[in-house]
């Protein structure tokens, strides 16, 4: 979870400088994947786009986790509603909505993804919350009337452990949600460079004239997908 949270800082990284006169250069020692149409080094652009996508997914996952916690803690009466919301994958909502409004910018998209992923985290969070609520330690905290700041201090490591177990699934949903939307041209505009945005540029060329950048972008997606698969426990 820590490295994923560290990716949040990459959202503050500046854009690469444009140099249209050096656009479309072939791969060389100086530019291992060549340059894109606007003269940016393709390898550098791919790295920056990928790491920004990770940062964006981390922000969405944090939001989803916070909302999921709220649903699990306070929304016990609406379990049926969360179940109905869970029956539809987030992208089934977001794709038509984005088409209807002509594309979603970064922050509304992040908010929407967070809102739609939260009900999917709710059952697992509720299960963990129930363990906490029925534990003698929690009953003691309530009986003794411990102040919230001391409760938080004591229970923080446990909370962090539970969040760390659920964070990767929310993170990967947000990552692929944003990548799919951007790759289909319905995500944030050119101001928000991401892996999906890169794929949107490279997808039309893939069938006729695939570039090294297109293949590298596909390989990055595959690598990210494979590294997100949990290791089997013995």
């Amino acid at each position: 979870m820590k490295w994923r949270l560290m990716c949040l800082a990459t959202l503050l990284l500046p854009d690469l400088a444009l140099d249209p006169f050096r656009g479309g250069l072939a791969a060389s020692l100086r530019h291992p994947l060549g340059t894109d149409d606007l003269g940016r080094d393709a390898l550098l652009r791919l790295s920056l786009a990928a790491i920004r996508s990770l940062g964006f997914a981390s922000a969405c996952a944090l939001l989803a986790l916070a909302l999921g916690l709220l649903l699990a803690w306070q929304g016990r009466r609406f379990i049926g509603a969360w179940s109905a919301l869970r029956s539809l994958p987030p992208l089934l909502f977001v794709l038509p909505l984005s088409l209807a409004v002509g594309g979603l910018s970064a922050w509304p998209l992040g908010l929407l993804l967070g809102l739609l992923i939260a009900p999917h985290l709710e059952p697992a969070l509720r299960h963990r919350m129930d363990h906490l609520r029925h534990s003698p330690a929690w009953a003691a905290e309530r009986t003794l009337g411990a102040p919230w700041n001391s409760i938080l201090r004591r229970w923080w490591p446990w909370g962090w452990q539970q969040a760390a177990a659920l964070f990767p699934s929310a993170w990967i949903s947000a990552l692929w949600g944003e990548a799919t939307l951007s790759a289909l041209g319905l995500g944030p505009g050119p101001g928000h460079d991401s892996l999906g945005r890169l794929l949107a540029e490279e997808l039309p060329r893939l069938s006729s004239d695939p570039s090294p950048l297109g293949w590298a972008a596909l390989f990055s997606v595959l690598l990210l997908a494979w590294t997100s698969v949990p290791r089997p426990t013995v």
Partner: protein
Amino acid sequence: MGWLVWGLGLALAFGLPGATWRASAPPVFPWHTVGPTLLAITSMALGAPLLAWIGGPPLTRQRPLALLEAPPDLLWAALVLALWPAAWGPPELSGWLVAFLAASLPGEVRWLAQAMPTEYPFPLAWGASAVKRVRRLVLMRLWGRWLAARLPIWLTATLVLERVLGVPGLGTDWMTRVSVRDRAGLTLWVLGLALLWTLSQVLDRDLA
């Protein structure tokens, strides 16, 4: 409570805010894609349980299956686009079917394998034929609930694949009706999804 959410969804579909700047007619339902869609659903509805029957619950621990399941639908569509031989023409419905099965089958096999009860110590101790028989009975019980629960996920997968491969189908129909604010068509879609949810809830209760 779930029905309240679906009621809100219906109300939203009926009173969808906004209007397109130029009024456009609602799209004609893509009847020509019903055949290939049924073929895809049948392949999935038979293929996934068959693989789960052969592999059983140990499939959930298979790393190759997890690695096949991990990539997003988008990657499969892009790979079909990139690797489709130019001599075969554009990857139309056949390309879509290949991408759909590649994107969805591993996940479905894992879903079914995860839903199957553990086989140790019984029926494993009773021998291979008992194991196969128990797997068959379990899969027959799971089949309806699995289909009802997973169809919206397949619709999402096909929506992405259709957009990348340029093959209009059911996913595109759902999306176009939102963009042209076809309230009647959307209401039918929401009703269909609500029906699937209800069916999965009822079958879930039966299984429990």
